[in-house]
């Protein structure tokens, strides 16, 4: 097991170095750049030259990359070009927002998806199953940004049940401990802030949860159907085991393996979904940070760090998924 982990970690390092070089060179070869973003209409050749030099973009790209790596190895990802804040600070501020959103979405997706998929499989061909299939098809097909705007329009503009954007009502005081606003409110006993944060979280979380929910329902359903037909289930039933035991220990546990894989992959996909969802709801997490850093200011230091971080999260989640196989399926452990 240890060897597997070490090997995967080495792969991770190589992946990150290759990715960092790719991002670095790609970003700098895009037309436009931070200099243009900073100068706006007021870009004279002198100002452009001045800022290009001051930011170090006049140096050969390999020299720039070398300096960047040198700093990164010491944990310095530079500062945001726009605000001058250290990139680590910018990201650590946005990270909890995205995680809070992703966790809420995953709770909805898994909490609803697994039971729904299981029930659909058990009552295969009946109306719940048919409804579930139709619902999941819709969930997969509907683009997130469209759903986001649709939900927003209905629930914030027509019936004012939820706020249109943000994580907290403007002007509401809260004490930040972890950066997860719902949790912070509970920790500091500022329950109004916690409730307010939850109220802001619901629509974005539902929007973000739709695709993973649909996928999880479908995979669970298919997987449970497979297991239901296995000999050991029939044997267990023939032995007269209690239904709950059969469902819990024989059906669900065996059916969960592909579901867990899917959850792992969906967590990665969730991060890309978060970009759109956050944009729609002005969420202020990593997704918002990515779009702002690309479209507006070409904030290279922030972009580089976020893409590397996203890659890191993706690889680590997949590593955890692999490890969880061993937990769920003893055969993997033995091998």
């Amino acid at each position, binding site marked *: 097991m240890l060897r597997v982990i070490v090997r995967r970690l080495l792969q991770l390092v190589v992946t990150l170095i290759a990715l960092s070089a790719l991002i670095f060179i790609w970003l700098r070869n895009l037309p436009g750049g931070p200099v243009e973003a900073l100068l706006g209409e007021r870009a004279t050749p002198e100002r452009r030259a001045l800022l290009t030099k001051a930011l170090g973009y006049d140096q050969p790209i390999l020299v720039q990359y070398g300096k960047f790596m040198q700093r990164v190895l010491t944990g310095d990802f530079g500062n945001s070009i726009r605000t001058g804040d250290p990139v680590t600070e910018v990201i650590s501020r946005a990270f909890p927002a995205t995680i809070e959103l992703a966790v809420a979405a995953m709770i909805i997706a898994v909490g609803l998806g697994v039971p729904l998929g299981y029930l659909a499989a058990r009552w295969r061909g009946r109306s719940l199953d048919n409804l579930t299939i139709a619902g999941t098809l819709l969930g997969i097909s509907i683009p997130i940004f469209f759903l986001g705007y649709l939900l927003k329009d209905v629930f914030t503009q027509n019936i004012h049940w939820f706020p249109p954007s943000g994580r907290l009502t403007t002007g509401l005081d809260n004490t930040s401990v972890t950066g997860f606003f719902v949790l912070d409110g509970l920790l500091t006993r500022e329950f109004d802030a916690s409730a307010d944060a939850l*109220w802001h979280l619901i629509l974005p979380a539902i929007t973000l949860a739709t695709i993973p929910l649909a996928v999880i329902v479908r995979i669970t359903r298919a997987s449970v159907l497979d297991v239901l037909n296995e000999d050991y289930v029939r044997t267990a039933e023939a032995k007269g085991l209690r239904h709950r035991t059969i469902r819990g220990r024989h059906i669900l546990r065996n059916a969960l393996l592909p579901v867990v894989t899917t959850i792992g992959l969906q967590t990665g996909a969730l991060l890309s979904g978060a970009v759109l969802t956050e944009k729609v709801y002005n969420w202020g997490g990593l997704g918002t940070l990515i779009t702002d850093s690309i479209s507006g200011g070409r904030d290279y230091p922030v972009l580089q760090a976020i893409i590397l971080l996203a890659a890191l999260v993706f690889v680590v989640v997949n590593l955890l998924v692999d490890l969880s196989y061993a937990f769920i399926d003893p055969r993997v452990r033995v091998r």
Partner: protein
Amino acid sequence: MQARRLKTAVAIAAVAALAVGAAGCAESERDGGSGEAKTGGTFIFAGAGDPKNFDPIFNDDGESFRPVRQMFDTLVSHKPGTAELQGGLAESWEHDPDGKVWTFKLRQGVKFHDGTPFNAAAVCFNFDRWYNMKGAAAQSQMIYYMDTFGGFAKNEAEGAGESIYNKCEAKDDGTAVLTLNKYKGAFPGAFALTSLSIASPEALKKYDANTVTQSGDSFSYSAFANEHPVGTGPFTFGGWDKAKNEITLNRNPDYFGEKAKVDKMIIKIIKDESTRKQELRAGTVQGIDFPAPADRKALEGEGFQVINRPAFNILYLGINQKNPKLKDLRVRQAIAYALNRQQLVQTKGPGGAKVADEFMPDTVLGYAPDVQKYEYNPEKAKQLLKEAGAEGLTLNFYYPPDVSRPYMPNPQEIFTVLANDLQAVGIKVNGTPRPWNGGFKDDVQQFGKHDLHILGWTGDYNDPGNFVGTFFGRGKAEFGDQAMTEMFDAIAKADATVDDAGKKAAWEQVNKDIAAKWLPAVPVWHAPPAIVVTKDVKGLVASPLTDERFNTVSVSK
């Protein structure tokens, strides 16, 4: 097991109740009754982007200037709602006949937010600070200072020239005397630049304001710039919560002018345009900036106040004379005659827009009432093209489809109309859309790859040089890097003229010659950018320079 199930059910119910309760609370807050405008409360305005920081001298964009303007004052200011100059921290000013020595009579009894007195020594401290700024990083971020004063005591940043600043003396507490090495037409208008706001010397020193450090390819600013900006303005700095995207400004009870009516102003940063509108409609913000022209009517219909700022901008169609065909004045005139700008204004312009005949608004000194005008005349355009042997001309027309600027809210639509007009007189147009910061500005301003392009400008202060000088005072890739020395010299001469009458005459002549003799571009329109507030907001005075001070604003509850 039963107990566990029950516990789960209770937890779910609690969370649901919490959420519904929160929704209910917010609903009841929104339902508060309306009444007369009164002092107190909070005014929430939606900003479209992060400010860079709050040290005026290191900033040059609108999103940074919005909060800075509430906290700081300048020596000279603008009459509310106009671009006309009036006293600010200086009650009056005068200059010697050469325009080199400027004497400011300062307002008495003014205090900075930290309680220290505003006086001539403080004014000179600020001028000296700017002039003596050290470090390439810091100097490179002082865009407006460099524009105005040219350079530093010791230039460390490339591109800085010789400084026109000589010295500043505090004759007494109420009199500051600024001596320049040479006159510049930008004054006194440039003294009203937000970048040149006066900050508390004590706070500047205490919070190490001059330290701008470079980390890799970016800069970081001082505690003064980020956490402790101290000026004399109607609001004091309350904080910038970056996790919540909120800048809080508190009422300054000791402000020397009209004290703020609200207790607090919050600038909520919402980068998505449609989200800003939705927040406005939901009542969670009370003001937004620069609505799209297409939305204005709808917003008005919904009861919002859509306030047009007097137009202090210009949109132009630039002509690149790198293309030999476009060097011929007749071809450029043909392009001007081909454009039905009146129709463009009527169909695509924001309400209150008007056709431009010159490259500056008519409120700026030196606007000539009798320049050559290019009324829509496609026949004349065809004839001129024929005379110039330029029939069947093909031109690459660059435009940025992805941005909305105050003077150009809908570039794609503007391009379509202008291109149709050109095609109607036989000019073949290759539409070349390029993202604003992804090719357009590089290709147009740096490499001059285009033949035609649309671009514009919002004035910084009331001075013809800030418009015409910026566009045509020197060779630029935008217009073909041509050595149009006659035009450059005329502009330099006008800019160096000290007396008002001479200055007016010189700039009027420049404007006439630009239209008749040089025509490096075609002025298209002046478009008033709008600001939108909810109907319970009173007292907002919209500024042509987007120089709104929100101390006059009240929100009725």
